[in-house]
């Protein structure tokens, strides 16, 4: 149905000779106002396109960088069951990165270019991944709090005005909810375990709570992109609104876990029907954003190293694909060089692997 709507819009906007800029803007505004989806071939304001590319790239980068703090514990996971869960989760994150880069590519960006920007420090990823995973309980705290915050942020994105992003979020949110429950269950096992395990869980929650609240971004009065994003229906709720919703969700969950949230000011506000909570240390947030968090350098360095050390592998795949590309028939020898095109194609086993992954996690 979405495709039909898109085609109708395309006809409406491009089908007549007298289409003017004003008509294009009006058609775009009407689509957004009607809560319909903007699709890749539709006209859209340049700033809308740029905002989406920025946001989706940052989202994809967060999935990729976010593999690191958790992968840090794969080789030390304390039981084979937990190890399998963690490996599956890190694999899912790579898959989410792939969905999101693909969605960003529908706007004319390329994955390689976006990765280059990440490596050069010109595009961001979520500030949360600049914190270290110091104990096994951190894996649970990340699942419960970090994935929980991500879901609170991302569920409204399933209704985002840009179709490919909204559809990617539907798939991603399903898997993220699963990870979040597993993280919660991991913490519950620790909380109900030995004294040392309980202490480990509490310490992890103490360290991850405030950074998780910062994942919702700066307070509304200091958020530069919010107003426009809300008008475009990329964003549906303000940073502070989502943050409050998250606190309301976490308070009873912490009680059920038998763990305390490290904020003495959290209390139920009867009048407003929600929890009040303490002030966030925004100076810490600013430092992390500026690159001065505990792991900023390490995260980017590992990503760059993986990319640089993998260059010869990617070159080999491209060279192999070029050598084994179907030869152009004599009649079409003047067509665009097929070797160049196929060198950019991904080798078949790789596509096979990700297709298989999607099947298994669907």
């Amino acid at each position, binding site marked *: 149905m979405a495709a039909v709507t898109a085609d109708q819009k395309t006809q409406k906007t491009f089908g007549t000779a007298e289409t003017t800029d004003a008509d294009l803007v009006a058609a775009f505004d009407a689509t957004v106002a009607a809560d319909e989806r903007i699709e890749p071939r539709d006209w859209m304001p340049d700033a809308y396109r740029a905002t989406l590319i920025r946001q989706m790239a940052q989202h994809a980068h967060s999935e990729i960088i976010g593999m690191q703090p958790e992968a840090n514990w794969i080789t030390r996971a304390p039981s084979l069951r937990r190890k399998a869960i963690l490996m599956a989760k890190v694999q899912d994150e790579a898959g989410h990165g792939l969905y999101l880069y693909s969605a960003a590519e529908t706007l004319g960006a390329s994955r390689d270019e976006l990765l280059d920007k990440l490596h050069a420090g010109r595009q961001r990823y979520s500030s949360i991944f600049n914190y270290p995973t110091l104990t096994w309980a951190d894996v649970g705290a990340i699942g419960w709090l970090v994935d929980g915050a991500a879901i609170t942020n991302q569920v409204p994105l399933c209704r985002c005005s840009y179709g490919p992003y909204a559809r990617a979020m539907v798939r991603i949110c399903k898997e993220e909810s699963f990870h979040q429950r597993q993280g919660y269950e991991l913490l519950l096992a620790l909380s109900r375990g030995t004294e040392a395990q309980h202490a480990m869980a509490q310490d992890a929650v103490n360290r991850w709570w405030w950074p998780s609240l910062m994942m919702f971004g700066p307070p509304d009065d200091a958020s530069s992109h919010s107003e426009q994003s809300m008008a475009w229906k990329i964003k549906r709720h303000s940073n502070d609104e989502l943050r409050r919703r998250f606190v309301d969700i976490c308070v009873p969950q912490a009680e059920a876990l038998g763990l305390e949230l490290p904020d003495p000011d959290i209390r139920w506000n009867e009048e407003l029907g929600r929890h009040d909570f303490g002030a966030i240390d925004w100076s810490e947030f600013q430092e992390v954003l500026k690159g001065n968090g505990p792991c900023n350098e390490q995260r980017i360095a590992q990503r760059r190293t993986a990319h640089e050390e993998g260059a010869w592998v990617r*070159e080999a795949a491209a060279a*192999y694909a070029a050598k084994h590309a179907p030869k152009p028939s004599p009649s079409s020898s003047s067509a665009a060089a097929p070797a160049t095109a196929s060198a950019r194609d991904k080798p078949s086993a790789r596509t096979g692997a990700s297709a298989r992954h999607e099947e298994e996690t669907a």
Partner: protein
Amino acid sequence: MSAALALGDDALVLSHRLGEWAGHAPVLEEEVALANIALDLLGQARVLLSLVGDEDELAYLREERAFRNLQLVEQPNGDFAHTIARQLYFSVYQHLLYERLAAGDGEFAPLAAKAVKEVAYHRDHAEQWVLRLGDGTEESHRRMQAGLDALWRFTGEMFQPVDGLDGPPSGVDREELRSRWLAAVADVVERATLTLPTGPQSGGWAAGAGRQGLHTEPFGRMIAEMQHLHRSHPGASW
């Protein structure tokens, strides 16, 4: 020695090595593929070890000398070509072995019947990469050849008999396995424009060393990392 322990340790240890790639792979699709293979192997290990006893006790509380895996699978990852060479040697072997076990009526037949589908994928993945790296660039050709050469001396161990798997009535014939393995590996290596190594397949090791709990030095460090947390909290459940 229990055959389930031998097969389970192979899968457990190779899965662990592949898990070390997470966040370091040359391309995102390989993050997915290597983790996928590692997960398949970990699943196989858990089933096999559970046939012997408690999977976590076996994985986390045995010392180096009690592990029964092939030395091949404990070898460090090295570069991507080294990892792929290890995958080629092992997954061709595992595929042929599991096909044989799945066709028989031994205790491993049901497990092998399920695992053989996963292993066929692992084998295809390894073969495709050997082709790409061997017949890719000059550098990838050189690295792929170096990986095949370096690991060759660990391949002979795969063809040592394992009690409970080999011999009549429905067991594995190791000499048949070896010749089929050699033919399959030689075919891929040739198509990849590479050369099949010619040195001895057991190096300086006693035949079947890993199966007897004689391992190479990097292995102790690997299990120290793997077991550390579990051993630090005796009796805890996770």
